[in-house]
């Protein structure tokens, strides 16, 4: 089945990201689970102009908070996504012109920043300092980025969605 509508593809991918986030990983690998929602949102922020606004990021974050349920402060994902999208929008033009490896490095830095923010929020919430393996997740996100970037490009082509 071909997905004609680009918006349908977007919503579908958001849903997939939420589900993927929710799927438990084995204890030993759990720390490596990337932030799927952040990655998908980052892709659309960079590649599809006007698709993601700060308001949409906020709303998506709230959805993620609801889906995540307990164990996270309500509003944490909203906060993280808003900042992520802001940073991406701010450097969007530069990021888009980077070669893929450079873009990947930049995405890594942005996700690291996101992790710093998360830690900051959790410290404020008295949740304490996270374990060292907490910092694996942004690295995994960075490693996943090129694959995700290329496959989503391909998907969008299949969906006959023209980028800029």
């Amino acid at each position, binding site marked *: 089945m071909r997905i004609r509508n680009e918006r349908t593809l977007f919503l579908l991918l958001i849903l997939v990201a939420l*589900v993927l986030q*929710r*799927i438990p990983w084995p204890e030993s690998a759990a720390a490596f689970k990337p932030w799927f929602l952040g990655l998908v949102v980052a892709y659309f922020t960079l590649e599809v*102009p006007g698709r993601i606004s*700060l308001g949409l990021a*906020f709303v998506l*974050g709230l959805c993620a908070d*609801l889906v995540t349920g307990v164990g996270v402060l309500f509003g944490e994902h909203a906060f993280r996504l808003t*900042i992520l999208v802001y940073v991406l929008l701010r450097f969007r033009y530069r990021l888009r012109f980077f070669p893929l490896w450079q873009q990947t490095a930049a995405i890594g830095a942005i996700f690291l920043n996101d992790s710093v923010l998360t830690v900051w929020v959790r410290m404020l919430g008295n949740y304490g300092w996270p374990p060292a393996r907490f910092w694996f997740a942004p690295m995994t996100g960075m490693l996943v980025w090129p694959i995700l970037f290329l496959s989503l490009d391909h998907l969008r082509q299949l969906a006959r969605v023209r980028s*800029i």
Partner: protein
Amino acid sequence: MNSPDRAQLFAKGADSTLALLVYAAAAIALMVLDRKWGYLNDVRAGSQSLAQPIWALAELPAKIADASQTYLTDRAELAEKLNAQAETALRQSTELLALRAQAAESVRVRALLGDEPLATSKGLIARVLSVDLDRYSQRIAIARGARDGVLVNSVLIDEKGLLGQVTEVGASTAIAILLSDVNHRVPAEIVRNGLRVYVVGLGRDAALALDRMALNADIKIGDQLQTSGLGGVFPAGLPIGHVVSVARADGDSFAQATLIPAARLGLSKLVLVLPPRPNIGPVFDLRRAAPTISTVPNTPAASATAASR
């Protein structure tokens, strides 16, 4: 960002920064509300039904993986467990065999000691005075009575296994009903698998039967039966007999099995009387007390018992 201004290398600063501040402040406010006062628990609880499908979707692969993993690991684990249990069972059954041999030996030793009651044993050796074996009544009279401490429901065994229980007590004699009496039932269990059954008499001293056994009951020829200890009369673990035939005829509601009793029901000369288990009344209401006990004529006690009936 909806502006089609592509020449800019940087996004427009002012309004998006303002928006960021607003949204970030909103998010932080939400988090504070959640953390400090837990206001949002209700929201969360209310939205669970919305999030449920996503959770269900997310759990699907885990469930599948779980199921297959359970299937795979359980086979290994179960095999291991089974081995361990088989080992335990083997060890315990050999211990049991040894114990049973010892028990039988002790009974035999007591029997060798003669007619005298054993001060150290709870059991009481009794000579069999008379044996009454017919189709409807399988009873024996023993030369011990109330004077010796024999009570109704005292259990009779010989060196091989269970004989029966005392139903009437005279001063120095007592009458006991045998396992083979058609009115007698013993709560029993199969030694091999613990299956609980009732052993009933057939009116013949050489055979017993299992009562109302399900067609699919796990019972095989050669299975040993012992008292289960249920019912409050017989102590657990007394040998009853072993299965010699199992029939599951078409159209029958129950499986038929016959046993050969372990004890020499009609042939014992000496029996051991065990005190009944405490705090129980008579379990078998035998309105028809042994009608035809043929007594040994030159035993006054037995005659007295017979006369008293």
